[in-house]
């Protein structure tokens, strides 16, 4: 029968049963615990593994560089990174309560990693003395550590959230003579002083050390030297392994409660409390469970194991499996113990009969009718303690089967079952090997759901975390927002303020995430404050643009650095070039002062940056010309003693020169900047017209045949309202249409009409007629001409 087989795997120690459940087959491959330093976090937390540099190990096809790898409890790799920190050997490695991996190396440097194997800045040091003396050993507890140096001094960090190493009282150990045999700590929460107390097995006795006091333990019963020490979870019982092979359990005053003589007096490699009523000893291939009994339970292992103490048992990690050793819970025992006739056991049996449609089901129920409530309760409780889902189901079904017979007023029981179902769904979800958090129900209860969800988030199991928090109704605002960090999940929560999430993400040091989230924020005013406190902006186009906009109007220098850091050289170039204009605005700069130097330098700097990229050859050339122009303008201002050149364009400079009668300078600018003949003619003609130097204009027209014809001359004269001058050039216009329009503009209708008819352009004639609308004589000329034209068109 199934029930029998359950209990068949149990082992009895004094009057208590123990069971060892296999939780996972480890998913990892080629991991040999004996070659590695291993840190396992309690509460089913992650496992950190790094090759042990204090051992000589053979390298198989692997890199000589050490890798820090982080697995979940099922051996699924979460993250890895290469270990390349200086500071000597890795002495101690442990997980803190918030799942930060603390690594302490020989020189006392503390490196911290998160579960994603990202090194958390900054690194801390245990202090100068540790640095000089070298750390040889360290003992961790929840959030603290005590380090022992080669000089026998003790240093402590009481809380890794606020790393402030300090020195404990000096135990005065002559390290060169004798190293302490063992070391253990009593956590601050269990000491009278509220400070940590260190127990050191030195010489024949034990020394207790705290902040400012060292005491030799005075007890007749010590049986030193002590080889191994372990303090129970509640800090009340001390287990020590003596040199003569005794395991002694005592209270903190060293009054023996119980002792057990082991077969060997060699000290165990590992010693750990299993709950509060037994101690595990591991040496070579043997794991002993010692409890208040003259016998002990022994298990044989053919591979190295690591004991991971939990509050209600011990997890046993080996290369291939993860097991959980615990005292069989009372409810489970009452149901499954061989020959049990407890109501709960009968209820389970009744369900079995019921399933098989046997009438004995009813018989069983009648038997336990009066004690049904406790039977149901026991079934529910036992279900909670099971790791096996089908057994959970059986027990819960038994409970609800029994519950159905109470009749009314049994809400309490029903809620109980519901509550348990909920809890078990959570536990089963996190126990899945992908998540790999093998929590027992008791661990879960002492860990609490919000903490569990927080841990899932840290391990990037956002979806599960979200589902759990929704399922359990734990919607702590900040948590929930943090959960929502993946886009897909974000979509689930409509109308959430991404900026708020981003701000939160930024605070928790996750800038990448923050920048990413800002992309989703639709309310841009909220984006900017969020962005304000970002030190870095990642390559998120939207966030970046916003930042740039902000910086452009506010923090110029900041922006330059940003562009430089992102390699947008042309943008830096533009900024430098704009700065050069700012310098130009300085009134001192326009008076031919030495300020021109820095201004031109800035432009040249910009030019160099532009020339870095092929796409900006044009800008680079322009900047070069710009610098050149400024120099020439500067010279012109000096030579003419007129501050009218700087910051005008090349064309304006030429015009100014001509207007000032400085034709040579104009010509020089023209050749320096390779001004085309076309532009030159327009410029010179307009300039000469401005100073109304009609003779010079005429001379200019005769220099050679103008490259763009005589239109500029005509236009300049007409604009200056010099009909006579214009008439010099109009006949020279090549196109009769242009001629017609030019005549029309100076009001010579007859000539205009003639030219237009020469062009045979009816439309033009019509338009000209309109412009002569007031002049009836003129308009009749146009009409006749147009008639003649259209007549021609017809014929």
């Amino acid at each position, binding site marked *: 029968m199934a029930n029998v087989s359950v209990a068949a795997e149990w082992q009895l120690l004094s009057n208590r049963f123990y069971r060892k459940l296999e939780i996972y087959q480890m998913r990892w491959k080629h991991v040999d615990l004996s070659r590695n330093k291993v840190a396992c976090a309690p509460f089913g937390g992650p496992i950190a593994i790094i090759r042990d540099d204090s051992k000589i190990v053979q390298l198989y096809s692997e890199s000589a560089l050490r890798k820090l790898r982080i697995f979940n409890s099922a051996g699924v790799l979460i993250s890895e990174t290469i270990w390349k920190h200086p500071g000597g050997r890795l002495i101690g490695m442990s997980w803190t309560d918030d799942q930060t991996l603390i690594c302490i190396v020989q020189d006392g440097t503390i490196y911290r990693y998160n579960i994603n194997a990202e090194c958390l800045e900054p690194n801390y040091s245990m202090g100068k003395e540790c640095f000089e003396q070298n750390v040889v050993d360290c003992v961790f507890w929840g959030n603290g550590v005590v380090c022992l140096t080669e000089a026998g001094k003790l240093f402590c960090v009481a809380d890794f959230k606020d790393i402030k190493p300090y020195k404990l009282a000096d135990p005065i150990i002559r390290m060169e003579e004798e190293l302490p045999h063992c070391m253990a700590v009593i956590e601050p929460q269990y000491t009278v002083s509220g400070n940590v107390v260190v127990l050191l097995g030195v010489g024949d006795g034990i020394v207790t050390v705290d902040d400012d006091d060292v005491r030799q333990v005075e007890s007749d019963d010590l049986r030193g030297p002590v080889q191994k020490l372990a303090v129970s979870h509640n800090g009340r019982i001390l287990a020590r392994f003596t040199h003569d092979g005794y395991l002694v359990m005592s209270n903190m005053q060293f009054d023996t409660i119980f002792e057990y003589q082991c077969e060997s007096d060699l000290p165990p490699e590992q010693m750990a409390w299993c709950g509060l009523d037994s101690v595990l000893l591991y040496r070579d291939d043997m794991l002993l469970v010692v409890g208040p009994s003259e016998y002990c339970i022994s298990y044989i292992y053919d591979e190295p194991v690591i004991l991971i103490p939990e509050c209600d048992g011990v997890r046993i990690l080996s290369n291939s499996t993860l097991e959980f050793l615990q005292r069989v819970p009372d409810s489970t025992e009452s149901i499954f113990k061989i020959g049990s006739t407890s109501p709960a056991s009968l209820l389970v049996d009744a369900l079995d009969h019921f399933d098989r449609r046997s009438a004995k089901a009813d018989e069983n129920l009648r038997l336990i009718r009066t004690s049904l409530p406790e039977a149901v309760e026991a079934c529910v409780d036992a279900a909670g303690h099971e790791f096996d889902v089908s057994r959970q189901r059986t027990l819960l079904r038994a409970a609800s089967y029994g519950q159905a017979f109470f009749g009314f007023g049994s809400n309490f029981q029903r809620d109980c079952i519901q509550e348990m179902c909920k809890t078990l769904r959570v536990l089963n979800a996190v126990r899945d090997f992908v998540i790999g958090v093998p929590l027992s129900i008791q661990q879960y209860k002492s860990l609490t759901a919000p903490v569990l969800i927080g841990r899932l988030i840290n391990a990037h199991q956002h979806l599960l975390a979200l589902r759990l928090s929704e399922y359990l109704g734990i919607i702590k605002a900040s948590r929930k927002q943090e959960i929502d960090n993946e886009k897909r999940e974000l979509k689930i929560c409509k109308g959430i303020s991404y900026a708020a999430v981003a701000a939160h993400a930024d605070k928790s040091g996750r800038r990448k995430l923050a920048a990413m989230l800002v992309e989703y924020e639709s309310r841009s*005013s909220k984006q900017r404050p969020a962005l304000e406190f970002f030190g870095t902006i990642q390559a998120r186009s939207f966030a970046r643009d916003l930042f740039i*906009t902000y910086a452009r109007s506010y923090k110029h220098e900041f922006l330059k650095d940003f562009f430089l850091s992102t390699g947008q050289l042309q943008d830096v170039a533009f900024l430098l070039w704009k700065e050069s204009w700012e310098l130009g605005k300085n009134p001192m700069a326009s008076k031919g002062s030495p300020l021109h130097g820095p201004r031109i330098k800035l432009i040249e700097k910009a030019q160099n940056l532009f020339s870095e990229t092929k796409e900006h050859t044009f800008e680079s050339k322009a900047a070069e010309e*710009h610098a050149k122009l400024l120099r020439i303008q500067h010279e012109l201002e000096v030579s003419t003693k007129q501050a009218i050149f700087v910051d005008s364009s090349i064309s304006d400079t030429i015009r100014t020169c001509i207007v000032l009668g400085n034709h040579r300078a104009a010509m020089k600018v023209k050749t320096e*900047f390779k001004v085309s003949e076309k532009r030159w003619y327009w410029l010179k003609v307009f300039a000469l017209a401005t100073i109304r130097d009609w003779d010079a204009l005429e001379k200019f027209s005769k220099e050679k045949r103008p490259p763009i014809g005589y239109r500029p001359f005509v236009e300049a004269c007409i604009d200056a309202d010099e009909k006579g001058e214009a008439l010099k050039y109009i006949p020279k216009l090549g196109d009769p249409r242009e001629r017609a329009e030019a005549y029309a503009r100076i009001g010579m209708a007859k000539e205009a009409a003639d030219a237009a008819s020469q062009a045979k352009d009816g439309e033009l004639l019509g338009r000209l007629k309109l412009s002569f609308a007031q002049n009836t004589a003129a308009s009749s000329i146009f009409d006749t001409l147009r008639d003649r034209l259209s007549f021609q068109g017809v014929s």
Partner: protein
Amino acid sequence: MAQIPNLDNSPLNLKSLRELSQRELINILKNIRGKKCLVIDPKLSGSLSLIIQTSVLREHGAELRHLSADPIQTDCTKVVYLVRSRFNLMRYICSHVHNDISKGLEREYHIYFVPRREVVCEKVLEEEKVHHLMTIGEYPFYMVPLDEDVLSFELDFANKDCQVDGDTSSLWYIAKAIHKLESSFGVIPHVRAKGKASVRVADILSHMQTEEPVNSSDMGGPEINTLILLDREVDMVTPMCSQLTYEGLLDEFLHIHNGSVELDASIMGAQQQEGKKMKVPLNSSDKLFKETRDLNFEVVVQVLRQKATSMKQDYTEMTTTNQTVSELKDFVKKLNSLPEMTRHINLAQHLSMFTSKQSFLARLDMEHTIVEAQSYDICFEYIEELIHKQEPLVSVLRFLILLSVTNSGLPKKHFDYLRRELLHSYGFEHMATLNNLEKAGLLKKQETKSNWLTVKRALQLVIEDTDTANPNDISYVFSGYAPLSIRLVQHAVRSGWRPMEEILKLLPGPHSETKRVGFSSSPSFDTLHRSSEAADRLVADGRRSLVLVVFIGGVTFAEISALRFLSAQEGMAYDMIIGTTNIVNGNTLAEAYVEHLV
């Protein structure tokens, strides 16, 4: 004052919207007891003048000032700033406060951000250590009705901000404004967007609907049936062409600002001393203007002449024959329209001074040549000459943009040559101008073949023989060119995007089409049924359903005229309301990209 437009004939109850804005502003003033000095952001004062009269503000104890760098001269102990969220304005305010402190003046400061506060601005106040002295509030003024069918969101630089600087904050304001409309008139069930910014606005809008849903269950059906969002970027050709409608030309040459133009009083025939400026309000309250604003300017001249002639005839009849009393009454009534007549005759005369210029005609000619996209070389040479002659930079840029957009860029050789000539003629500071234009994609190197010919043909943008006097197509507004943007709207209204997807793909930016449900909770059959019933009832009322066309990056008057023309067509089942970030024309658009460094 005539400057506040009369909204009685609006197809949407814009009046209530304006009254709300009025009330909110007055409440701000009421809540600050006693005399106060109201310091207004100069950019805002124009918009505010369209909703409230300054006398009303004064009645509530406000002494009015414009915000500038100079310290405020006032005896009031209470200073109320009404400003947009801009850094430089914050600086002014800070300097005012510091100035007061240095003089030992103790004042009470209030800042009202329009339309909403931005934390960055407050940050400036904090950094300048004046934040604690301020009482900070918001004046949620997101839009202003310019006319009975035009709403402006008053965002001047939306186009440039988005395209060059990537500052998309204006998109949020646009969405917010539309959302505000929805909260008064119901969730708009159909949304069609074309262009990057438009699609984003549509997104933000639906986001807002989930964040702060409009409860439309107590509103009956939605009053606006369709929202069409259009990026200016999609059609940069139209605004670069010279507008030829009356109102468009007024804007091109005289620049209409907040529904009025400012010009020399002498032009308007006033017998005043030289150089005195006067404001001429231009909106639908002026009946003659309402009649003529959307007409091609050629026609306007004729209409005015006709009116003048008939008036003259009446007058002659009046003086020569004996009239009955009722005939006299009619005549006097007609006389009432005399001021309007003179006003517009003066304006038209002033305008024709510009339009008869040969350079203007050449300009129009060239615009048409470019739009026809047949003779590239002529256009290139024309622009080259403009640059050589150092014609106003903005008009050169208009042509450059027009040429580049229709040819999807200029050939590399020309691109570099024209840019160099431009820098030589106008100064190297315009390197930044050119860079802005390039970033916005308005002036660039040719890399692909242009789609313009295909678009032009498929959408029938160039219409030969347009009869401007009796138009049958929107092309009358540009005497032969039908604005691309309005063609898109025409199609979108008629049949949605689907049948024209191929063409849409040839234009910049994505497009989207969404159907929205006003009831934020899951729509049951019942509610859906009810809303469609409501829609039916509206149609049965004889009222046409409404289309809101929103231009992101601005709209020109010519385009507005074209839309009015469309909605006046008999076959059209919709009235149109226009929403826009601001009113633009080619000059203001191009001007936005010009950097002023000197």
